[in-house]
């Protein structure tokens, strides 16, 4: 009975595989699957706005043109960046990455300590849950008093917002290091630093990286917000300026630039993640 059932199934598995579509076509299909909706919406926007001259909603072509004029029409030896881009976009990126990096280092170190020490965890838990509930933008006035206007205030705001997801994720990862891995390290008397950076850190890396990714998104938001008050340059400052002088195309250009920036940074971090976690199950399944 089972034998006949198997025989009737067998031909299906031995059948020649369906011929694959040619490569260009497959690439095109893959591209459309990811981008078709996006492209259609842009085209719709273009088609709708190009007819009537609504000053608040300029057509995409105008926005892209504005972006080019504002930031990307510079000389080749400046990598085509204009003076405006060098004065505003680069400082913004610098603040964002600076605040994010500082928060990451603090968050990972404190998170590992909290994750591995139940006493410390109980000790600081109420403080951490109180502080992380405070929205970072609300602390802008406080940071303004402490750091005055300028770079330190912005970096502090970004770092304050980013540190919590990094810290909590790291603590979570560090607390859940496998018991056998702990016993192995203890049985070989692995010294403290080698234990922390050779076992706890890599074991928590998947969690840490997801914390860093949440933090990166936050740092973009906090960068813009911190530039809306109290600076004389930056993308946020430019946005505010454009809005106040009714330069709607420039306003939209800023919004689009931030969107692109967020995507590029996230993409870069995901590349790093994929490399750093090549050993990890979620990313190496195909090898098994």
């Amino acid at each position: 009975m089972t034998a006949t059932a198997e025989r009737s199934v067998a031909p299906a598995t031995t059948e020649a595989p369906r011929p694959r579509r040619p490569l260009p076509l497959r690439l095109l299909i893959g591209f459309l699957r990811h981008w078709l909706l996006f492209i259609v919406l842009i085209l719709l926007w273009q088609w709708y706005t190009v007819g009537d001259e609504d000053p608040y909603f300029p057509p995409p072509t105008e926005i892209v043109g504005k972006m080019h004029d504002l930031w990307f029409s510079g000389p080749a030896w400046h990598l085509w960046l204009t003076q405006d881009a060098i004065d505003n976009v680069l400082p913004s990126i610098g603040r964002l990455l600076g605040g994010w990096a500082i928060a990451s280092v603090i968050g990972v170190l404190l998170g590992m300590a909290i994750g591995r020490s139940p006493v410390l965890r109980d000790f600081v838990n109420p403080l951490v849950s109180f502080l992380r509930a405070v929205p970072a933008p609300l602390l802008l006035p406080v940071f303004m008093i402490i750091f005055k206007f300028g770079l330190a205030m912005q970096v502090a705001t970004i770092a304050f917002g980013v540190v919590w997801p990094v810290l909590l994720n790291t603590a979570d990862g560090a607390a859940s290091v496998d018991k056998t891995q702990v016993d192995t390290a203890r049985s070989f008397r692995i010294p403290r630093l080698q234990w922390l950076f050779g076992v706890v850190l890599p074991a928590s890396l998947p969690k840490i990286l997801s914390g860093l990714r949440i933090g990166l998104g936050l740092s973009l938001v906090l960068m813009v917000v911190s530039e809306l008050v109290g600076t004389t340059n930056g993308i946020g400052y430019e946005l505010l300026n454009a809005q106040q002088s009714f330069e709607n195309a420039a306003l939209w250009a800023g919004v689009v630039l931030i969107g692109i920036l967020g995507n590029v940074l996230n993409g870069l971090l995901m590349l790093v993640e994929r490399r750093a976690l090549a050993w990890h199950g979620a990313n190496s399944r195909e090898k098994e």
Partner: protein
Amino acid sequence: MLDVTGLGHAFGANQVFTDISLTVNEGELVCIVGPSGCGKSTLLRSISGLMTPKSGEILLHGQPVRGKVPGDLAVVFQDYSRSLYPWLTAAGNVEFPLKRLKLTTAERKERVREALEWVGLADAGKKRPRQMSGGMQQRVAIARALAYRPALMLMDEPFASVDAQTRFELEDLLLRVRREHDCTVLLVTHDIDESVYLGDRVVVLSRPPATVAADMKVELPAQRDQIKTRASEAFVSLRSEVARLLHGSGNSEENETEAAEE
């Protein structure tokens, strides 16, 4: 070399073992065999210093072991997949515990290469645990212990998680390695055949609360063979004696609860 006297431990009101005394002499391979739930792993963890037992004394080279792992002791765990660090290569895992020892880089690399060669993984140094079979992973764990050059190697059911074929291979690997490199091994297992096949001596634990039911010398030739040794008369009589000690005493009701625990 290792002297355990009057060791006892309880989890709450649940006494797992009492008054365990045993010795391991230099160069010996001693197997502890016992029914499941008799605290074999707890016993091994106590001896290794990973935990502190409620009572009794453990001396390694005459020095008391209490809550701290002695520097010249290595443990091979049952669960190789979680004992190896998945982010390190096989060679990286073997090298990891050597870093705190005062060795030059060249000496360290040489020990890693050598240990991997001993377990037959000379070419697999660059592989990560995930790319290896269970048997290979446990070989790496054994290589890691060997490269560390411990005075005493403790093995906690080291071959319980691999398939039967691999298990035979690894048993012979252990016998070969200890013969060639003069290791002292204390191995815990629930498998009667394995304990007799591997051991110079077999320490039989009774049902919990466990005590030492017997400490038997295994009178088999040093050179053992999976087929011939296991078929020999001496082996068969030894294994049935161990089995009698393990299962013979006590009533059937207890046997059932034990099976349920397993």
